[in-house]
């Protein structure tokens, strides 16, 4: 009985995903409208390498650099990640804290199927935000006067979706494993922020450069999808990471007492 779990979880979270996507569209549109007036003036900022990397190269003089800095580096992953984390934490630990899971699990549904249904809903919600973000990019880039291939915009949206999946899966595992919503949100947010910083700064230190491979943000942005299109291997890593954490979530949930 995965379908009813999936359908309801998606239905309850879809409005938040659409609102967040609408916000991304608005920001993309504003960024696109501002570029002709501001972008060339700012040009390429002379920043330390790590900081510049965290801002997508900090090259505000080109449309690709502008959108890398404004959308792809911070705002896009922030919004998609937040939607995925809140959805995953709310539908697992949130419902457990609200005592709804005690009622649901009085029905003939296994805990593993419940988690898979909720993970699928989180994935679809994330895909929805990413798809809306793609539409926002198309609009923003058009307003900026063009300059980024449509397939590369789609590639960024795909990378955003995969990044959201991986980020949400961390919250899913923590929420299902502990039944604590606050811990799931804080843990997944901390993990993602740490990954963002590691992806930017670890490469600056020779001995620590390998750490970036532990950061989901590295697989999201390392390939630079706005410039190079889809990084299939990077997306695959993010998806496999999400699948593995969903399995961990199901196993962790299966082994413990329901709280409340």
């Amino acid at each position: 009985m995965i379908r009813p779990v999936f359908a309801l979880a998606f239905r309850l979270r879809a409005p938040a995903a659409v609102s967040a996507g609408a916000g991304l569209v608005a920001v993309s549109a504003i960024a696109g409208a501002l570029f002709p007036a501001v972008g060339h003036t700012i040009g390429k900022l002379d920043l330390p390498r790590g900081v510049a990397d965290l801002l997508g190269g900090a090259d505000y003089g080109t449309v690709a650099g502008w959108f890398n800095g404004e959308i792809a580096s911070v705002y896009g992953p922030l919004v998609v990640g937040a939607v995925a984390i809140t959805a995953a934490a709310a539908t697992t630990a949130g419902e457990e804290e609200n005592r709804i899971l005690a009622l649901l699990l009085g029905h003939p549904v296994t805990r593993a199927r419940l988690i898979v249904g909720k993970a699928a809903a989180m994935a679809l919600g994330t895909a929805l935000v990413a798809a809306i973000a793609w539409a926002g990019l198309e609009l923003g880039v058009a307003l900026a006067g063009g300059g980024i291939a449509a397939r590369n915009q789609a590639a960024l949206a795909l990378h955003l979706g995969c990044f959201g999946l991986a980020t949400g899966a961390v919250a899913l595992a923590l929420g299902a494993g502990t039944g604590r919503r606050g811990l799931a949100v804080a843990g997944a947010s901390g993990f993602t922020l740490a990954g963002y910083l590691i992806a930017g700064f670890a490469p600056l230190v020779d001995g620590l450069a390998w750490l970036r491979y532990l950061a989901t943000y590295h697989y999201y942005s390392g390939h630079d999808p706005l410039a190079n299109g889809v990084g299939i291997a990077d997306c695959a890593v993010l998806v496999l990471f999400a699948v593995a954490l969903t399995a961990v979530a199901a196993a962790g949930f299966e082994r413990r007492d329901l709280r409340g």
Partner: protein
Amino acid sequence: MSGARAAILTDGLTKDYGGGRGLFDLDLEVARGEVLGFLGPNGAGKSTTMRLLLDLIRPTAGRAWVLGFETRAASLEIRRRVGYLPGDLALYLKLTAGQMLEHLAALRGGVDRAHLNTLVERFAVELDRPIADLSTGNRQKVGLVQAFMHDPELLILDEPIAGLDPLVQQSFHALLREVTDGGATVFLSSHTLSEVERVADRAAILRAGRLVITESLERLRAQAIQRLEIEFAGSPPLAELRSLPQVREVEANHRHVNISFEGSADAIVKALARHEVRAIRSHDDDLERIFLRYYREGEQ
């Protein structure tokens, strides 16, 4: 040990939360077709027992069988056959009552729509209203409908009349009688005796996580100290009443007399028949006293 014949069987079932909280060494058998009232003050372990039976939580020690299935090994099969109403029922506030029931019916699968509609009408569930706008009692009605909607073999009901008005309580008790007449078993928890007294064949009393007694209500009533309040036309025959072996206590206030007695009332009635009696009232709160005695024994 196997619980094939019993609806519920527990063997040393224990859930130790530490600090003396939890459920300890519960040996309980509920026969098929029986209505067992599970009584105890708040925190006695009633909900913990029910959650263990449904595999929502796992025992620290001991085992349990429901409808012949071991709770850890065959939880899914158990939940397919059981109707469960959790205590502190929670529902999705953003859904309407109808959407909530649709969701739970889809989760369960194979629910007879006609039966579901009958239950909805019977409890006058307002299907179109959002759960968030429903009172506690109206939410509880949604909980009751979902517990009964698949015609379960066993009903595990945690505080089922919480928040229900007297009319709905009547509907609920009538439905309970119908399903037990049809062979279903009911395991019902409460912290109030009157509810259990109305519907149960036997009562099990839990205190501080331990089973104090399991007894038929008939036998519990036989242990009860009964009370009669009598108004005499003339002087009350106090000495005569006090001399009767069944009488425990006689209190007089002018022509009004309160008598506490055990066992048969026959000798008292025959003694009263020799005097002019203006009014006589019996009090039915005696079982309550027995239960309170069991509750309090451990505290003293």
